[in-house]
């Protein structure tokens, strides 16, 4: 707990990834170099096709990578790991399980103590404000509630890293803002390292300690933008001059990159 937080908790060096082989191969990621500090909140923003999901799937161990090194806590990533929790674009709740059973899925798969897991699931459901919905089926919940349940599920086995792939992309703007605030609160309470992918510039700036800006064809990391805004950030932060400046600079990058097409 008191061990110093590693500044290079996640270290990516010279990472490239090609889909397919031969002349047909598509270069999805090219020469990615970056580090992510332990306990920090990093957002990755970029237009579609910039390889941000590919990067996240590599971090999650769901995808092999071709060249380069990807180190997590000093160890190269080879396949999926227990200390990583993933939140996907859709909530992917299993429709035949109640919310509680869904949240407890990691415990079953990883063979954890079910009694403890149940207590923890109840706590997490309280944290994502779903108390009282434990025994409901997913389809009885709204999209925002389903996504919150999936965040609770990703946290059940107490992973050190939370990887989130456009978790709020399917939600309406109002729900999305509320979810951003909730996620910030959850992150501040849990002290996890969070990597969140989004295609929304305001969301990236609002949530991130650092924003990784990616550009497409081939997917490259354009720049890393530190966001120096006090926490906890409220919706008022969005009208802060530094917020506007950061957003504008990212937006400019995108239009710059687009002009190459």
């Amino acid at each position, binding site marked *: 707990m008191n061990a110093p937080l590693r500044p290079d908790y996640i270290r990516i060096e010279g990472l490239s990834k090609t889909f397919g082989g031969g002349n047909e191969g598509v270069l999805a990621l090219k020469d990615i170099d970056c580090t992510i500090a332990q306990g920090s909140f990093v957002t990755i923003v970029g237009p579609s096709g910039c390889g941000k999901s590919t990067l996240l799937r590599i971090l999650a161990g769901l995808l092999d990578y071709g060249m380069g090194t990807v180190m997590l806590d000093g160890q190269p990533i080879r396949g999926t790991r227990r200390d990583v929790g993933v939140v996907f674009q859709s909530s992917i709740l*299993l*429709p035949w399980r109640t919310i509680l059973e869904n949240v407890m899925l990691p415990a079953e798969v990883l063979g954890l103590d079910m009694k403890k897991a149940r207590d923890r699931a109840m706590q997490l459901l309280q944290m994502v404000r779903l108390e009282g919905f434990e025994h409901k089926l997913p389809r009885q919940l709204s999209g925002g509630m389903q996504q919150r349940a999936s965040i609770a599920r990703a946290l059940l086995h107490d992973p050190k890293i939370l990887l989130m792939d456009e978790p709020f992309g399917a939600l309406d703007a109002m729900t999305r803002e509320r979810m951003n605030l909730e996620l910030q609160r959850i992150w501040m309470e849990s002290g996890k390292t969070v990597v969140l992918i989004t295609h929304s510039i305001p969301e990236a700036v609002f949530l991130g300690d650092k924003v990784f800006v990616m550009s497409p064809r081939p997917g490259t990391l354009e720049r890393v933008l530190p966001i120096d805004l006090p926490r906890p950030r409220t919706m008022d932060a969005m009208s802060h001059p530094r917020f506007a400046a950061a957003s504008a600079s990212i937006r400019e990058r995108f239009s710059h990159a687009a002009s190459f097409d």
Partner: protein
Amino acid sequence: MTTAMLNSSRTASSADTATPVATPVAPRPRRRANPLASTRVQSVLLLAALLGSWEAAVRWFKVPQHLVPPVSDIAVALWRGLATGPMAKDGFWYHGGVTLAEILLGFFVGGGIGLAIGIVISQMPRLEALLEPYVAALQSVPKVAVAPIIVVWLGFGISSKVVIICLLTFFPVLVTSIAGFKAVDTDRIDLLRSLSASPWQIFRKAKFPTALPYIFAGLNMAAAFSVVGAVVGEFVGAQAGLGVLILQMEAQADTGGSFAVCIVLSVIGILLTSALRRVQRRVLHWMPADTSQRPVNT
């Protein structure tokens, strides 16, 4: 077919049972006061009217009994057939028992093998690709056409009928289970993979439950086919069974008796499908009412 059934049942149920949300509470007592307004009562009345006009028409136009027997003859034949001992060779219980045994054995063995092979094939994409054309080709073979060959091979006993039913029940369950496993989206598999789940855990926790609604669709088809298979098999050659009884009765121009046996066969079919529906409703309890649960007794 399914949607038509769903729609009809939905309109039926919404007409005779008011959900608190849809309609105010007030109309309920009025409905109780006038039972003729209930769709269920109306359909019973419709049946009574149809049977009554059948009886009247046959008597009025003096239709020969071996062509169309009056309803009362069928009722008498049904009564006689049912009022026999379980081992009486001319009774419904004996022959019905033989046919039911064939149906149940054929359904479980054929459906079970179909499901097992479907599971194995779907877990091996290359095997699936290899066998797919054969499954498609065999599926379009009219299985009842080989019934005489099966009887030649296996004789007049129960086993030839069971094999014929197996042929009929095997394919729908095989094909739907393969389709069900294909329907498993990669998201669910990714979710479990991200938790370092084993292939067996992925199968048990994501693939099989996703495929279950499809498998049940196949089992429902298989249940209907198994009754057809039993009767066809018994027509081709058997020592006992309701199909045999129909042939014997027709030989004696006892059309009323044949109709009565048909009623018994229908009852067997209805019992089989409703038992299956009951299991399905329990297993797929999580599905929304309009896809798995038909509101029968709400």
